[in-house]
């Protein structure tokens, strides 16, 4: 059996939405260099909808694939829906990830959330703290 699903390899080899949005309305960065993965998400918001999204990732194959899939899942969606995105949805859309790589999908969810939070803060919009839990799911950071 291959290490990754065909879907993961497709998104790893041909990542969607790689790059930078210079005039982004919201930017989120999670992870750290010590753990070996950093994801950065750029959002362009128009009328409460994700008009454009780009990502940059330092990380393994599943980290790059998870970022790519997450951007696909939120593109064109209203922010309320974007905040419904779960790591599980990212992993499922990739036809699953190996157990020790599930944190990559968690990181993708958190990166998207961090970008939305940044957007809310820049706009001075009220937001519910429960939508933005602390980044505490990465075991590496807790050590």
């Amino acid at each position, binding site marked *: 059996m291959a290490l990754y699903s065909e879907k993961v390899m497709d998104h790893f*080899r041909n990542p969607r939405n790689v790059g930078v949005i210079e005039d982004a309305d919201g930017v989120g960065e999670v992870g750290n260099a010590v*753990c*070996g993965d*950093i994801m950065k998400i750029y959002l362009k918001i128009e009328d409460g909808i994700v008009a454009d999204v780009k990502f940059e990732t*330092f990380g*393994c194959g599943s980290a790059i694939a998870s970022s790519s899939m997450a951007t696909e899942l939120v593109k064109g969606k209203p922010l309320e829906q974007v905040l419904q995105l779960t790591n599980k949805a990212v992993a499922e859309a990739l036809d699953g990830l190996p157990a020790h790589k599930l944190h990559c999908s968690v990181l993708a969810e958190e990166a998207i959330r961090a970008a939305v939070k940044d957007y809310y803060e820049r706009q001075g919009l009220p937001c519910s703290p429960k939508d933005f839990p602390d980044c505490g799911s990465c075991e590496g950071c807790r050590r």
Partner: protein
Amino acid sequence: MIYADNAATTKMSAAAISAMLNCMEESWGNPSSLYGLGQRASETLQSARERIAACIGASPKEITFTSGGSEADNQAIRSAALLGARKGKRHIISTAFEHHAVLHTLKKLEDEGFEIELLPVGKLGTVTAQQVADAIRTDTALVTVMYANNEIGSILPVSEIGAVCRERGVLFHTDAVQAAGHLPVDVKTQNIDMLSLSAHKFHGPKGAGVLYARQGVPLTRLIEGGAQERGRRAGTENVAAAAGMAAALEETCAHMEENAFKVSALRERLIAGLSQIPHSALNGDPVNRLPGNVSFCFEGVEGESLLLLLDDRGICASSGSACTSGSLDPSHVLLAIGRPHEVAHGSLRLSLCEENSEADAAAILKAVPEIVAYLRNMSPLWKDKISGKREFVL
């Protein structure tokens, strides 16, 4: 396909395959049986033992067949620990960058009350005989230091360390898994009391290894049962594997110099080429280095991504990144030579053999810089470094 992961395993040689097939067809009996078929197997096993002994300067009685390097390491260390403990000696000296077969065995002994001292290996990844001499105490039961490091290729001064240990009356074991068949081994002149080797690192079969123990060094059984291997390891012997291992070792030892000459030329070409990549660094000792080992860190990229993209181009290599080790931490070897975590995640190990060609080197030298540049271009870590937000480490 370009196979550049010979430190992980090697392709079996034609001589080894032929020896194994011959054994399975002609001398498939149980070496412990007294009839002709069994005795043929016994003779095959004995011949393998003699030929392997000759390759490392040992006598046949000093050779115990094991399931591989890990078992040999486990048995050597356990045996020395037990001997030491009987005399009240519970101090063991090793290095911070040994193979896990050594380090994890030592960890268990530590839990059992032994004191384990792991010598620091410095930036180049080596220890000196003086470091060992300074660490030896009256209650030191064992010094175990690898002959050559599997990840970064440094060759350690085992002869000098052996001499120090012999002079001080301390048992010396070396994990020679990466060295056997590639570097000269002579257990007598190198003052080695115990040595581990593994067949599949020199074109022999997997699941076969040897523990050499100098005559007079009693071994503790890890596996209880019959009286095979002179009571040192129970279980019907893997005769075919022993025959394959002997054939492979004889062949690599016979061509050691010419192989080393050819392979180290390829190594130097790769090291020179990969050094051109900005913010990269060679890991390990540039001079005292295994002929086939090329180990680099590339800042701002992660090793697993690099390996997957190399695989797409038909190049097999390995990395010490956390994602490839299956743990949260990158390789303990790279951390031991002082590479910070973020750089250790971006490591690449190419390990060559005599079957690699100049064309392989050219393909690798085209692929690696392109892939590193591609991954850096999507790496926020790299972007932060070139924009000055974070400092370069390399």
